[in-house]
């Protein structure tokens, strides 16, 4: 657990720099997302691949099957084999996540999650993308979420920060101010 992030970061960086040098970034990204989705759908998938009593050859065969089924690139297939040999396969979801962040940065993209009390209208969405895109100087991967609890306004999660301009927060701040 301690090194989970460091391990995931190292593998993701290695794979990313390999993909970049070989012009495979897009391919690798989509393969990885596919794998992550598959491991989410079939939770035993990763566990099975990390069980030591199953011989490595069986696992390698299995990876080849996956490769055929999903049409994975050679690079990703080879990467999976390395993870298996090094007994790091269980970190795959974290590696994919780290890879995605590297991928975003490479494309000047950033994940932004916006929470609002009701769904955003198309014009609000465009306005949001415009203002926040300019502020963050990045293209925005927008994830929208509705939470009536915040009463009104918006909450924006980006790069480890929370910009809380919800009505609920405003009332809390007001309460603090009045109590003082």
């Amino acid at each position: 657990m301690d090194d989970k992030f460091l391990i995931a970061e190292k593998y993701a960086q290695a794979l990313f720099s390999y993909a970049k040098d070989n012009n495979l970034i897009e391919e690798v990204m989509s393969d990885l997302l596919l794998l992550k989705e598959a491991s989410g759908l079939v939770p035993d998938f990763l566990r099975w691949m990390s069980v030591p009593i199953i011989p490595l050859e069986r696992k390698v065969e299995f990876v080849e099957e996956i490769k055929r089924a999903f049409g994975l690139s050679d690079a990703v297939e080879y990467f999976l084999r390395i993870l298996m040999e090094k007994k790091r396969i269980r970190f795959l979801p974290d590696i994919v996540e780290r890879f995605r962040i590297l991928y975003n940065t490479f494309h000047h993209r950033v994940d932004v999650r916006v929470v609002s009390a009701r769904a955003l209208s198309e014009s609000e969405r465009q306005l949001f993308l415009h203002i926040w895109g300019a502020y963050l100087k990045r293209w925005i991967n927008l994830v929208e979420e509705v939470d009536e609890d915040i009463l009104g306004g918006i909450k924006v999660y980006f790069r480890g920060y929370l910009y809380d301009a919800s009505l609920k927060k405003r009332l809390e701040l007001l309460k603090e101010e009045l109590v003082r």
Partner: protein
Amino acid sequence: MNVRISPEEISSVIRSRLESFSKSYELAQVGQVLEVGDGIARIYGLEDAMAGELVFFPKQNMYGMVLNLEEESVGVCLFGDDSEVKEGDEVRCTGRIAEVPVGDALIGRVVNPLGIPVDGKGEIKADRFRPIERIAPGVIERQPVKEPLQTGIKAIDAMIPIGRGQRELIIGDRQTGKTAIALDTIINQKGKGVVCVYVAIGQKNSTIANIVKTLERFGAMEYTIVVAAGASEPAPLLYIAPYAGCAMAEEFLETGRHALIIYDDLTKHAQAYREMSLLLRRPPGREAYPGDIFYAHSRLLERACKYSDAKGGGSLTALPIIETQAGDVTTYIPTNVISITDGQIYLETNLFYQGVRPAINVGLSVSRVGGNAQVKAMKQVAGRLRLDLAQYREMEAFAQFGTELDKATIAQLERGRRLVELLKQPQYQPLSMPEEVMVLYVGVNGYLDDIPLDRVKRFEEEWLSTLRSEYPHILEEIEKAKEISPELEEKIKKAIEKFKERFQV
């Protein structure tokens, strides 16, 4: 206070506050819980978090404190039930260091280390907060201790005097009367303008409840705050308890008043810190304690101080308590704390069972700075007392070899035995300084030499009640002049002689 405030006035005040209110959003760093257990959570993100910063778990409405800063994550201790926190939960930085409510509103209350009342007496309306950690006052802000902190315990006030602003360790095995000394000292502060803070760390809740009851019984809660972190609380709460209590006491120090704080005890505090550190995977050192345990205790005890007159002249006296195993003071935590205090009161199981209570080993106990603060009257009797007892201990060792003893030696031994008897003192009966002086006076001036050993206690009791009823002016004069003038000494001698004539052995 008979001023009537109309509702209109209130609304206009609120209105003006609302108009000046401009804050409409908040920007905070957020992270996610990676794993949680044993009161510790590891949080991903929070890159700007500071060590000691408070973090907030909005879903649980719970606070935690940042302890470990690592490359990709931070280690946080939780001030609440960790079973409510789940992987992936949101955590926010607050930009604040942990703080507790302080001020007069806390006096008479029992609170937990976060300042939340646990005595069922309702909300505490504190007007101020203080961070639980702060840098101890520097050298120029301080002055040497100069006023005594009377414990009301003869043996201590005479031979191990404590000054206001001093740090004196109470050390001994379990059940040797450590807590008793602390409680008597609190009880004795009545009417002396010293606010007391008793920090109970890792004790059974029933024990804490008894302590509070005792303090109430003697009217001592009127000027005392109890900070309770019971044995069943999570380790992080035990860990912050002394710092929180110290912050509460500092409020009085800062306002030019006098405060006394008891940490009962720092052994359990160290154990709580060790538990936390191991859970945080910090490298263990000697006896598996984390390497900075010395720093944890020294920065706490350094906060005790006597302020210079320019800083208001307030004082904060600290009495940390340490429990030893089989009297061994050479283990890690005792040696540490001994080295960062201004002396120690050393209690011994042997003495306790011999009936010498308080079970203070006078030979091993010292007070390195309190002598300056001792009043002259006490010095006048204490010098002889110390000398007589030292000689007694030396000769007692000889006498055990069964050698023939000369008359002078026998007399010394008899004197010593009576002094030891005289220094015994039951719990909850602290004496005033003049009373202590008068009791010791009869001992060191030989008035007890012809009194049988088993009558000494009764002699003391009757002498004290005679003093109180027939010679209150003697007590008052010592209290006022703080010394025994030759004229007063004449009066005292006459009084004793008269009393001895009446005393029936």
